[in-house]
């Protein structure tokens, strides 16, 4: 039996029907409560409670509206903003300053972040050596835990990490959304940016292998300014500091404000390039229903990663740099873009077809079966499951520092002190 054109045009963004969003929201609230409250006491438990409620509310908005933004963007930007004060306050409390010294490096006590994986994977594989002075295990910011999070991300969110989980990306994502319109048009730079990004990854990975030095962290990381940096003492360290400031202001602040694009994530970040390279392992993708698309180009303009253009739309999706943020869903006037399963073609087949056939056949048992199938299909739809997966990932990763920042703010309001001291 051939499917009709109407049947093929199953829009991937169809809003999940009742009761799927409610069930998913309840499940999310349940896990948010546990992950944000587990093991916390005192001020930290208040922070955890507020963070859990905040995340659950935003997820409810995503589930009920059937599109991620603006709730995702709020979650992502707030978690990035919450990361900085918690991280810096911890550094200042532990060592009295943000700047590193040689002794701290030699003690292997630097926090390990996911971007450093790009420089560390090859030396670890070939020499069984970690080319970064961090702990191997213990806190989340050590090598083995970060490696496991990354492996998990590959088979779940893929490059969606960059719009739901990364605690740096939120700064740029929030800033790129601030201006009403772009003053700098980078719309046709997508392929070029992707090539540069892949080259940065190759350089960082091979330089790490060749020198056993985390070159990216040493010279190119724009986020040193909001985390930690080597104490400026020599010409070399001053030069590195100038590069950090330049990259942060240029790629993370100014260009996103001018162009409404995430320039650092598109051009520089080697972890993003690595996620793009391996995104095929993720079961989720962003799909364009080519038969419903009217080629208005609204999604191209809305995409912060310049991952959409006529060519990718015709091929039924976005370029490999797509971060699965869902900004394009809201922009599409036809609702032709949405999350889809990696291994099925949009509109090719669906459990909803079976449900419709059963309903058309008539009879109470068939109608009941049809309703059940539709409810299950809605609950299992990528439109609901991807935000659920990605936001769970992001929430758990950010819970520690977000709830800590909230707890510190609560303490600041109540006692005038930002210091937390033994909240956990």
């Amino acid at each position: 039996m051939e499917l009709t054109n109407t049947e093929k045009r199953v829009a991937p963004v169809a809003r999940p029907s009742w009761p799927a969003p409610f069930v998913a929201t309840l499940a999310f609230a349940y896990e948010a409560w546990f992950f944000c409250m587990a093991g916390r006491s005192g001020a930290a438990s208040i922070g955890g409670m507020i963070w859990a409620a905040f995340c659950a509310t935003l997820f409810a908005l995503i589930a009920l509206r059937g599109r991620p933004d603006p709730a995702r963007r709020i979650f992502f930007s707030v978690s990035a903003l919450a990361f900085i004060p918690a991280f810096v306050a911890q550094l200042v409390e532990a060592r009295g300053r943000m700047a590193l010294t040689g002794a701290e490096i030699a003690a292997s006590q630097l926090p390990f972040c996911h971007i450093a994986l790009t420089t560390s994977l090859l030396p670890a594989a070939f020499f069984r050596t970690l080319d970064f002075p961090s702990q191997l295990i213990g806190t989340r910011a050590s090598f083995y835990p970060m490696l496991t999070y990354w492996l998990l991300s590959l088979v779940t969110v893929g490059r969606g990490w960059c719009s739901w989980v990364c605690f740096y990306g939120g700064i740029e994502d929030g800033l790129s959304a601030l201006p009403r319109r772009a003053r700098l048009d980078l719309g046709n730079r997508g392929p070029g940016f992707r090539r540069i990004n892949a080259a940065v990854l190759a350089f960082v990975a091979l330089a790490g292998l060749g020198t056993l030095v985390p070159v990216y962290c040493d010279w190119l990381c724009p986020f040193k300014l909001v985390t930690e940096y080597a104490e400026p003492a020599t010409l070399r360290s001053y030069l590195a500091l100038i590069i950090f400031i330049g990259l942060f202001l240029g790629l993370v602040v100014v260009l996103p404000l001018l162009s409404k694009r995430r320039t650092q994530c598109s051009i520089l970040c080697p972890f993003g390039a690595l996620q793009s390279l391996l995104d095929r392992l993720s079961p989720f993708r962003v799909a364009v229903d080519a038969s419903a698309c009217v080629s208005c180009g609204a999604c191209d303009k809305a995409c912060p990663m310049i991952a959409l253009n006529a060519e990718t739309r015709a091929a039924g999706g976005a370029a490999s740099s797509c971060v699965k943020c869902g900004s394009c869903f809201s922009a599409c006037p036809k609702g032709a873009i949405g999350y889809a399963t990696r291994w099925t073609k949009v509109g090719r087949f669906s459990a909803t077809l079976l449900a419709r056939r059963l309903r058309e056949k008539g009879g109470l048992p068939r109608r009941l079966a049809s309703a059940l199938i539709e409810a299950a299909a809605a609950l299992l739809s990528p439109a609901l499951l991807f935000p659920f997966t990605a936001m769970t990932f992001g929430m758990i990763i950010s819970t520690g520092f977000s709830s800590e920042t909230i707890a510190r703010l609560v303490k600041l309001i109540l006692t005038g002190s930002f210091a937390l001291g033994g909240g956990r």
Partner: protein
Amino acid sequence: MMHKPIILAVGDIIAKALLLAAALGVPIFFANSSYIANGIGRLLRLEVEPSLSGGITLAEFADPLGDDDGSGKLEYPLGGGISRGELDIVRYAVRAPVSRPVWGETGAYWQLELSFAKAVSTGLAGGGFRAPAIHIYIGIDGTSSGSIESAFGEGELVRFDPKHPWNYVVSADGWSPKAAIRSADASYRAPVESDWDIARRRVTLRIGLAKAPRLLASLLAGRRTWHYVMVGAYDGARAGRFAAVREFAGPHEGGGAADELCPRVFDLIAPAGARQESELASEDSGRGELALVLPVEAEGAAGLKAKPSAVPRARESLVAEAAREEARAKVQAKDAREREARASSSASDKDKIGTFFELGLDDRALAAANAALARNARNFVALAYRGAIVARSAMEAKTLGEKMRLVARGYDDLDAAVAVAKAEGAIAALDKIAVFLCRASVSSAVPNDVFERAAQGASDFAAAGALAASEGDKALEARCLEGAALAFEKAGLGEEAQARWATLAAKEGLPAATRLELMDKGFTP
């Protein structure tokens, strides 16, 4: 013609089931991520690039806890900010010199590390005027020159082994950040980078080798060294900064000195076969002879490569001994029924609950704990056991939510029990130990990524160990030290764990399994 939609729908459902697996996999993964990360760690066994982390460890020396009393009688100076334990070295490590550090600003350097039993006071951190003073005298293999006298006049009031004269001395103190190195003939002096890490109770000394004289720089070739490591109380008015010791302690001097030649050393690293007490009590005031101190030897990187290791054979025999011990323990476990019968008829709630708990009879232990709590709600021992049983029951729970709920409920009881045990003064040490161990065993078992309790578990083990030591129960103290070390490792506090392993290695009569663990970690029990 329903079959095609059915086939398509089944395919769709399979695809969506994979999505569901991804969605549910994330929270399940995170609830178990510390186990997964540990597993990956055991599989990969990576090491941080030595040139980034201070160089490979050439030698590591454990020093017993609580021996910061010199020859056995020294007392700390009165007043000031220093307290017992702050002059107590528990570990000394010698790293291999790093010729080309690949990150950071320093040129070639050599790193020495000391760990203390308690947070070291430093003037910079506002720890008060009193602080530790450290002298490390270093002899370099193959040199005929050197000295066997102190570099600081009276200094420490010790003499050095004539077989191993020293060539360089490193001096550091917690009052000023200016550590320094000087040669025996005083022709070379240079600053040393010193890092006093109060949180980790560790002092790191980095000696620059880039512009050092030829003899010192020759360490880069991997030469063997001898180290006299001594700690005294800081006194800024004296040469060498070691405070005097007299019969009675005063504001500027330690007490407990047997005579005027009593060494001013509160703790030192003694070589294998020697004892600190006898070394520091070897002075002869009648003949005017100072106490003789002996160095510890650190093999150079070159020698370490050349030396055939005797470890595999020793390890094999330890494995066999551990297996025999395990077999003996199994035989002893057969008396479990007898113990159960004795506990059932016991009038003591604590005996009853404790024995049932140890035998794994959780239902009976829980019933006994509840009955005891019904009689006295402040029975903190029963509360602690109940908490541990409830948390342990999480292992049997089917859902993640149920597991977490049970652990959280267990902690309610455990935290309350520890709070009572800490608040009430007149409590038997054994009861306190039971309470600390209950919480420690739960904290070291639950995933640290979720509950972040491993560090607390380690502290509980350490507290129980200290109480066991005060009760003279050496076997329990050793078990607690091992538990603390493992929990610190789980919490990522490797330095703390190392200090506990080092202390454990200095203990005698350890079970073979523990000695095996120590051997695998590079310690010689």
